[in-house]
């Protein structure tokens, strides 16, 4: 079996198209991740533009200066401090009535760079989030937060979840009582107080893991000929007439494909995680996911969320692998298989779903629909299956596992029943 796997790997990986696809995608991923670092920009303490690792270091310093537990008392004190700074020279009511652009200009003209930058400090934006008004600058709504309200920071967070459920994805989705209970119960499980801190590396992994879809595409290109080329090149006759042509050979092909795909995926993950953790730092792994998205109802740490997101993409890859293998065993046309893969992988992300919550829920399950970690951990996508409610992570896992469960036997059966006519 081992030698069969070895030869199947050799068959797969010595094709020029496969070499170009694999090396090309890994190189592209490295370049994209590198550019991500190089193109990071932020304003320094005096408003100067910083870029690359310097910008990252500055962001880290700014965040670490505020690191610590978000106790209600601390939140209340810090919001009060924010209000003091923001409204030292400006009237909060006048600011609240301005458009966000006008308010921004007024603040920029009134305060020096250091103060302006402090008003936009991510920390303050985070603690003001439960009272945030879409389309307004933080200093426009900060005045509404009374000390009592600030002391009930976690109550406000829980309330904002209910508001989100009431709004139902902008009116596109009506959450059933079971779904509401599901999310409410999940949110109740988030430990308090939250800890604020720098988790840039993990944050970047969550932002960039979707690039793994390109690795999945390279895998599809490589695996497509696994069965199809045997039909096309006329090797099927010899293979199927051999002793193990309908048993061990299929196992060897499947195992070789899984092994290759897993190694390629691991390389992709290594590039994404390696660049992220080296340049943004590995600290903050045990900080809660709420550092990435405060509205997230998940009781996960940053590393757990990153691992889960990568895991979802691994399942996506296995599902696409199974789909590709099934198609490969059913048709000799590699072009038709690759076109199908491209449609499933990429075109599905371009399909409009505005206005239909159902379509949005369906399209989000496609690989490109899973490109946003925020959707996965904070957008409250839920799928009621009778009395059972699954979140986006669970449903995506179910869909891609189902693809594996169906696709692999289809591939097996199609190959074994193939007639050389």
């Amino acid at each position, binding site marked *: 079996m081992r*030698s*069969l796997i070895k*030869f199947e790997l*050799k*068959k797969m990986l*010595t*094709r020029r198209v496969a070499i170009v696809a694999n090396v090309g995608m890994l190189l592209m991923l490295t370049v994209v991740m590198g550019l991500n670092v190089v193109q990071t920009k932020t304003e320094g303490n005096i408003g100067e533009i910083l870029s690359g690792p310097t910008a990252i270091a500055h962001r880290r310093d700014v965040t670490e200066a505020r690191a610590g537990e978000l106790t209600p008392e601390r939140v209340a004190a810090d919001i009060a401090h924010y209000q003091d700074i923001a409204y030292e020279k400006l009237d909060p009511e006048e600011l609240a009535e301005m458009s966000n652009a006008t308010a921004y200009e007024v603040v920029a003209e009134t305060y020096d760079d250091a103060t302006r930058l402090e008003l936009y400090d991510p920390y303050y934006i985070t603690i003001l989030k439960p009272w945030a008004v879409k389309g307004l600058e933080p200093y426009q709504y900060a005045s509404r937060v009374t000390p009592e309200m600030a002391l009930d920071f976690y109550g406000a967070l829980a309330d904002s979840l209910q508001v989100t459920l009431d709004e139902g994805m902008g009116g596109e989705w009506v959450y059933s009582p079971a779904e509401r209970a599901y999310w409410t119960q999940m949110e109740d499980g988030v430990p308090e107080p939250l800890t604020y801190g720098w988790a840039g590396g993990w944050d970047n992994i969550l932002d960039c893991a979707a690039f793994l879809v390109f690795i999945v595409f390279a895998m599809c290109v490589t695996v497509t000929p696994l069965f199809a080329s*045997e039909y096309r*090149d*006329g*090797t*099927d*006759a*010899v*293979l*199927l*007439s*051999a*002793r*193990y*042509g*309908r*048993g*061990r*050979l299929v196992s060897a092909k499947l195992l070789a494909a899984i092994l290759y795909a897993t190694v390629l995926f691991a390389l992709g993950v290594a590039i994404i995680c390696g660049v992220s953790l080296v340049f943004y730092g590995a600290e903050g792994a045990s900080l809660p996911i709420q550092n990435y998205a405060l509205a997230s109802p998940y009781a996960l740490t940053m590393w757990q969320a990153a691992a889960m997101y990568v895991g979802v993409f691994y399942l996506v890859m296995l599902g696409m692998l199974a789909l590709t293998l099934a198609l490969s065993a059913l048709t000799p046309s590699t072009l038709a298989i690759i076109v199908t893969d491209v449609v499933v992988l990429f075109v599905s992300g371009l399909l409009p779903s505005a206005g239909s919550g159902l379509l949005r829920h369906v399209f989000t399950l496609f690989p490109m629909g899973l490109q946003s970690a925020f959707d996965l951990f904070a957008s409250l996508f839920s799928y009621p299956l009778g009395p059972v409610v699954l979140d986006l992570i669970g449903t995506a896992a179910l869909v891609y596992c189902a693809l594996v469960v169906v696709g692999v036997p289809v591939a097996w059966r199609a190959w074994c029943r*193939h*007639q*050389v*006519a």
Partner: protein
Amino acid sequence: MELVLDRLTKQYGPKIAVDRVSARLRPGVYGLLGANGAGKTTIMRMICGILRPSSGEISLDGRSIAELGGEYRARLGYLPQDFGYYPEFTALDFMEYMAALKGVDARAARARSLELLDRVGLAGEEHRRIRTFSGGMKQRLGIAQAVLNDPDVLVLDEPTAGLDPKERVRFRNLIAGFATDKIVLLSTHIVSDVEYIADSILMMRAGSFIMQGSPAEVVRGVKGMVWEARVPVRKADELASRVPVVNVHHDGDGMATVRFLSSEPHVAELSAVPVAPTLEDLYLHVFDESGAEHTGAAVPVTAVEGQRCSRRRGVHFGGGRHA
């Protein structure tokens, strides 16, 4: 050991590719002859278990090959007509891959592979990639893989295609040395290949076996019908339009020696003399130059055992479709 084809039929929609063929094959070399589309490849694919018959059954020693599955395939060697290969594999890679597929012990696989590569004249080429091989080299590699597992049943579909005369001799010797106590079924368009090594000839037309016997037996079917005459060159052309001409040799003095087939005694006008028939004469008699069946005068044939009942259907030797 006995391989039995029992009323084997393969039908593609209204087209019957193989029409209720029955035969009992015991150890020996069987040469399968027939024009393109006669059903040779279809029968071979069914024997190799890679094409399901529409009806009928193939059994080895009384057990259906479908039921035997891997056990049967372990005893089978097959060289398909359009032999596919992996361009990036070396010859040795390919042999070892096939050895693993055929269940040849991993330790013995390399030695056996090298031995066979040597026997087919590929010694020294084992580490060359197959994509750099000539057509003949690929064909020899295909022959080597077919016998890798020392099969009891060896099926070779057009094994000599692409081989030069020297390679064909080597192939014949390889098969002759290999065939003891084994069933070897080979199809070819090169009649002389089977004439030399086949113990039995199976002639196919329109999906049916139309004759079977040793080369000498089947050739007797055209005994007295093969002639040679020395005629003027222009007369040779005229003759070709009247009767099947096997060979024309221009003697250089405005005359030509013509070998032709005829059951008519009109040859006297040509001063033709009867000559000993060959398998090629028989083939030409059964199939015209285009490969289609010859509808001229019939010659006596030896019917294949078990085939007589199938003569109720399909097109058969002697012309006409039986009801």
